[in-house]
């Protein structure tokens, strides 16, 4: 791509250099003769040179920049530069150049001539880039070149030599730009293959990486068209800039200020399969120029950014997917900057596009490979390390770092070698010296290192390691590195130690167990005896052998009487392979023969062949002695048990009967055949009524291991049930485990009978006292009650103990709480007198019953004395005499009432009736009379009003006269003007009379009359008066009632005639009889005559009037009128 840009005049070499500088970071420009006219100031200052010094020719025709070029390179590049100036060919060299640090570093200088429209060179522009890194990058290009042919490319540095000459500049600049800018670069170029052909390669560069991919098959146009040469007049600033950039980076493009494509590298057009016209058509459709190029998902985002940049002039730098000619989308990065005119107006845009798709994928693959390798090193289940030839740690793998808690770098400490630090901090102190010696020996000799040592883990625990190291040698046999591996073998080492110590323990065990252990060959030759046996018999294994093997040993140590049986038993076992087991007497080393139990079993190999007999002898002399002693003591015990007058049984922990004493068998008999355990025995012998309780208790006892006692009736031998007491006690061994239950039982029958008789007597006595129709009380000598009969408790409503703790004595408390306050002092005095003198007590007083009612009681008390005459108890009887007292009181009251009633009948009833009934009409008459008088006296007289008042006077006077005549009739005690009337109608009239008042008082009147009631002969006015009176009384009684006020009227048949009831829901009457007494009143202004008169009226009709309680509340006044007898009588 040697497409040197044709630039319009305003774009001189210096401007081109500045353009390059904008992208790469530095740039230079010269005139056609090669004199520098511009160098990026940063470079100048880094070199410490001025522009003038660069151009000066101080000595022998050398360039001014000679001082900054490595002397070895200067001649070559100076001659190339001179040649380029003459020929106008592209200048591209690598050389060592002085750095700011004072050292030489590889750099690359590139230059390009700038020509006018006639092709004359008007100047040079270029750039210098640090090639150290670039060289590394390019060296990684995977192509393998033929060194010979490579050498042939004299005008290019080695790696670039493989690249097609036309593409070299672009490839070099892509790598450089990747390094300088950090932005990934993609370049397509042709690369020479070993066969000499060029293939298209796509190389993607990033700092640190460069990946090349063969894309030869993808490129459709292998020979890219020559750059389109636009007419000079039409070249815009943007295209020019685009070309400059492209000349260095490839893939340039340009837009005009409106964002319309004006240039796209022909190669790109070709590979994308688009033309500028095709792309720009999108603008006419209202989109941006990118529309037809981008992946639909990316377009909106890019379009927004593009619009923003067009509007503001901000740099355009985006990543997007674009469509290739093949139709596939790939990732690309594109960057653009505005080109401005002299006034700073944007005249267009130039930029580049970099395909990053393959790069992205390939880089990911590379990184994965490296990561996999690095993981492999870290994941190897072993510690890997690397040392320098002189033993300094340079690398530990992840596992080792984790184990030590330190990395190789951590070993570096001032004044010490890393190795020394590692040995000091990480190797077990006991292993440190040998470890260091061995390692140093290896370093000296180059021998392989191998050793076991303990290494300190980060938690401070030392673990055994098996370590090995080998040197990596160069061709001359010099050690380059030591690579080592150390493997954690701690668990194996520990296991080996454990095994050894277990073996030792086992040996000790066998030697210390108090059992004689021996081992013989299948033929019976002794092979081993343990220390216990040696000690016991006083013979070592050698002794056995010395004396002729097993037979002679038996001869020596076995009791003469047992030798034959031992011989035959052993012989039998050896022949048949059956286990050996025999008790025989063995001579102990002290010469005493002791019973021994010998056992032996064969050990067989996998084929079943006996390879050894292992035996053990146990001295059982002591246990035989003990058994004998036990038998003796058991016999004695049984004799004793049978002698004691108690039945004894024993059971094992499961409940099985293990022993029955002789006495038990005599009194109860042998258990039945099927009776083997406690449950069955209890079921068989215990009285059915007692069985549940005794069995439950026993079961609890057995379950918990607690001793228990049962009293129950048990059937004896004769079949009679007798009371017994059985006590059970567990026997425990030293561990506390129950080994036996013992139950001892004694006969309680006689005792139980006596107790029962006593209880019966006491119960009878108590019942007697409790059922006596009197309240009985017993008190201590000081008067404190100690017992109260049921009647007394029920009367008081509390038990004896209730008043305890109140601070008063029981007596005082009872008296204070119970005796009527008016009687209390006298009662207390009387009690005190009796208690102090011992005289009997007798008194009547009122005592408070449980319901609060005071009832008259008569209490008498007398002392009970013992043989010496001392008082031991007071017995008190208390009789309820309330009925008696009250009856007497009632009689007295009745007499009082009688005398008062007779008085009232003559005097009060008369005057009160007159006052009540006559005064009102009279007052009205008087007032009316005055009014009448005034109407008549007026001027002129008001006759009309006078007449009205006069009529009222007559009416009222008649009413008064009516009252008077009725009163007179009343006191005549005879029916006045009786007429026959239906009582229902009479009641209805009375109700109507009272209707207004009832409404005012918010009283509802309910009236119910049986159908078909007979007619009655009665004084209508009088009966109405009674009804009105009773109704009004009822309504007044309900005055304070909040609930519904209902007054009931009822008429119906009764035995004696017709019964009329007036009921209310007021508070009711305290004394239903008293209300009929004259002058009795509950009302403030009443005279108390109403009901008395009412009763007189009803009685004068031969009927009866009384009051009752109304249910659920209130009062009910009832009168009965006879149906015919009286009526007939009156008519006669």
């Amino acid at each position, binding site marked *: 791509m040697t497409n040197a840009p044709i630039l319009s005049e305003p774009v001189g070499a210096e401007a081109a250099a500045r353009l390059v500088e904008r992208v790469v970071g530095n740039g230079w420009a010269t005139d056609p003769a090669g004199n520098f006219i511009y160098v990026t100031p940063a470079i100048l200052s880094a070199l410490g040179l001025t522009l003038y010094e660069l151009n000066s020719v101080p000595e022998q025709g050398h360039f001014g920049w000679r001082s900054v070029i490595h002397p070895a390179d200067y001649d070559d590049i100076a001659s190339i530069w001179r040649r380029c100036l003459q020929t106008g060919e592209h200048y591209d060299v690598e050389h060592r150049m002085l750095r700011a640090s004072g050292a030489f570093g590889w750099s690359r200088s590139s230059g390009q001539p700038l020509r006018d429209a006639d092709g004359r060179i008007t100047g040079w522009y270029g750039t210098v880039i640090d090639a150290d890194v670039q060289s590394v990058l390019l060296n990684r290009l995977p192509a393998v070149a033929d060194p010979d042919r490579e050498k042939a490319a004299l005008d290019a540095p080695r790696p670039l030599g493989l690249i097609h000459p036309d593409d070299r500049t672009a490839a070099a600049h892509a790598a450089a730009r990747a390094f300088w800018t950090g932005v990934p670069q993609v370049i397509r170029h042709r690369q020479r293959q070993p066969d000499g052909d060029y293939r298209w390669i796509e190389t993607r560069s990033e700092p640190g990486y460069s990946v090349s991919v063969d894309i030869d098959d993808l490129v459709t146009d292998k020979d890219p068209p020559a750059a389109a040469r636009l007419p000079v007049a039409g070249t815009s600033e943007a295209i020019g800039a685009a070309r400059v950039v492209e000349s260095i980076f490839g893939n340039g493009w340009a837009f005009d200020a409106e964002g319309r494509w004006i240039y796209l590298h022909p190669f790109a057009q070709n590979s994308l399969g688009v033309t500028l016209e095709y792309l720009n058509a999108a603008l006419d459709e209202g989109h941006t120029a990118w529309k037809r190029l981008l992946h639909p998902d990316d377009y909106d985002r890019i379009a927004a950014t593009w619009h923003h940049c067009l509007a503001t002039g901000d740099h355009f730098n985006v990543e997007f997917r674009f469509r290739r000619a093949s139709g596939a989308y790939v990732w690309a990065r594109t960057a653009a900057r505005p080109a401005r005119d002299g006034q700073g107006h944007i005249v267009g845009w130039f930029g580049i596009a970099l395909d990053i798709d393959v790069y992205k994928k390939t880089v990911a693959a590379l990184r994965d490979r490296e990561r996999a390798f690095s993981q492999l090193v870290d994941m190897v289940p072993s510690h890997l390390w690397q040392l320098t030839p002189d033993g300094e740690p340079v690398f530990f793998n992840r596992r080792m770092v984790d184990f030590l808690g330190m990395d190789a770098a951590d070993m570096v400490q001032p004044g010490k070698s890393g190795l020394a630090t590692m040995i000091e901090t990480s190797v077990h102190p006991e292993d440190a010296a040998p470890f260091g010696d061995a390692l140093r020996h290896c370093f000296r000799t180059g021998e392989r290192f191998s050793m076991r040592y303990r290494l300190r883990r980060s938690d401070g625990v030392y673990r055994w390691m098996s370590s090995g190291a080998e040197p990596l040698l160069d061709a001359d046999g010099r050690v380059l590195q030591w690579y080592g591996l150390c493997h954690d073998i701690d668990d194996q080492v520990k296991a080996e130690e454990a095994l050894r110590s277990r073996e030792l323990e086992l040996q000790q065990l066998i030697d210390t167990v108090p059992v004689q252990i021996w081992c013989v060959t299948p033929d019976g030759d002794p092979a081993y005896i343990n220390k216990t046996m040696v000690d016991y018999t006083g013979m070592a294994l050698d002794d056995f052998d010395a004396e002729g093997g097993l037979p002679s040993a038996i001869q020596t140590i076995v009791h003469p009487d047992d030798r034959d049986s031992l011989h035959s038993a052993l012989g039998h076992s050896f022949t048949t392979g059956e286990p050996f087991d025999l008790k025989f007497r063995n001579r102990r080393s002290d010469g005493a023969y002791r019973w021994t139990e010998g056992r032996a079993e064969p050990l067989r190999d996998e084929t079943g062949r006996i390879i050894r007999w292992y035996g053990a002898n146990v001295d059982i002399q002591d246990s035989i002695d003990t058994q004998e002693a036990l038998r003796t003591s058991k016999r004695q015990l049984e004799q004793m048990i049978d002698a004691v007058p108690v039945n004894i049984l024993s059971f094992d922990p499961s409940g099985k009967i293990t022993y029955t004493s002789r006495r038990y068998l005599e009194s109860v008999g042998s258990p039945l055949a099927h009776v083997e355990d406690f449950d069955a025995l209890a079921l068989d012998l215990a009285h059915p009524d007692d069985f549940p309780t005794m069995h439950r208790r026993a079961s609890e006892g057995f379950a918990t291991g607690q001793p228990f006692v049962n009293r129950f009736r048990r059937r004896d031998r004769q079949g009679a049930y007798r009371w017994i007491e059985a006590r059970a006690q567990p026997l425990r061994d030293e561990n506390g485990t129950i080994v036996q239950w013992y139950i001892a039982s004694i006969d309680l029958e006689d005792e139980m009978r006596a107790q029962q008789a006593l209880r019966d007597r006491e119960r009878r006595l108590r019942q007697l006292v409790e059922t006596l129709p009197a309240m009985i009380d017993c008190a201590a000598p000081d008067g404190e009650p100690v017992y109260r009969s049921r009647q007394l408790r029920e009367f008081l409503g509390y038990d004896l103990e209730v008043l305890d703790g109140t601070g008063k004595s029981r007596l005082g408390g009872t008296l204070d709480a119970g005796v009527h306050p008016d009687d209390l002092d006298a009662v207390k005095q009387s009690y005190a007198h009796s208690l102090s003198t011992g005289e009997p007590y007798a008194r009547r007083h009122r005592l408070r019953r449980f319901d609060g009612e005071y009832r008259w009681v008569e209490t008498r008390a007398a002392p009970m004395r013992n043989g010496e005459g001392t008082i031991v108890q007071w017995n008190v009887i208390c009789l309820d005499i309330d009925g008696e007292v009250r009856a007497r009181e009632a009689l007295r009251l009745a007499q009082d009432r009688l005398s008062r009633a007779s008085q009232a009948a003559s005097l009060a009833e008369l005057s009160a009736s007159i006052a009540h009934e006559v*005064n009102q009409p009279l*007052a009205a008459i008087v007032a009316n009379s005055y009014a009448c008088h005034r109407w008549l006296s007026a001027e002129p007289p*008001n006759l009309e009003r006078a007449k009205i*008042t006069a009529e009222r006077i007559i009416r009222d006077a008649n009413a008064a006269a009516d009252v008077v005549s009725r009163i007179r009739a009343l006191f005549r005690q005879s029916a006045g003007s009786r007429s026959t009337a239906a009582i229902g109608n009479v009641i209805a009239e009375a109700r109507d009379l009272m209707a207004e008042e009832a409404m*005012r008082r918010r009283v509802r009147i309910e009236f119910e009359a049986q159908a078909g009631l007979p007619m009655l002969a009665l004084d209508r006015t009088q009966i109405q008066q009674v009804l009105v009176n009773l109704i009004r009384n009822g309504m007044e009684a309900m005055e304070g009632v909040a609930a519904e006020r209902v007054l009931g009227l009822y008429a119906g048949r009764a035995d004696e005639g017709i019964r009329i009831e007036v009921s209310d829901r007021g508070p009711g009457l305290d004394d239903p009889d008293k209300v009929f007494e004259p002058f009795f009143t509950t009302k403030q202004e009443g005279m108390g005559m109403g009901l008395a008169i009412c009763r007189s009226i009803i009685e004068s009709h031969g009927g009866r009037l009384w009051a009752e309680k109304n249910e659920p509340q209130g009062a009910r006044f009832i009168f009965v009128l006879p149906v015919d007898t009286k009526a007939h009588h009156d008519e006669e």
Partner: protein
Amino acid sequence: MMKNDRVVFIVDDDERIREALAELLESHGMRSVAFGSAGDYVEADKPDLLACLILDVELPDINGLEFQRQIAEGEHPPIVFITGHGDVPSSVRAIKDGAVDFLTKPFSDADLMTAVQTALDQDRQDRSTRAELGALRRRYLDLTPREREVLTLVVSGLLNKQAATELGISEVTLEVHRRNIMQKMAAASLADLVRMAERLKIPVTHSRRNPGGN
């Protein structure tokens, strides 16, 4: 000729009595309104005129004397009691509680009319007293809280100096308050102010000898 500036209320449960009394009063040119019970009377809409209440002692819903006591707190026309059974204790009690008269049925025209006239005169007197007091009360309510405090101290007889100390203000300030009070209450003199305070039942809480005491 009916006098329209006055009315007599009659409360009696007996229709005949109500009728006769109304007739008699009308014959004297007196308007009357009759009620069958105390409850009816209380609930009724009554004209605000010079008035007199003829009240029966034996009422169905309440004892007349009790009723008198209940309404004693409020403003009500002077009462003339009538009763069927007059007894001395009742009449004494009624008169003590402010009744004008206590007439036993049947009563004479002259007794009734004298009692009614007396009652009406008394009502006129009561009304004017109430009006004065009302004006006085309105004036008192015009005082600021501070002025009311000052008034209490001044009518208790405290010297200006003492009152100022009591309130923690200067004597000059107190005098300003005092002038304002006199003006607002339209009091001609301190004596006049003391009389007003008495009628307003403002308690005397301090004394000159012991200004801080209560």
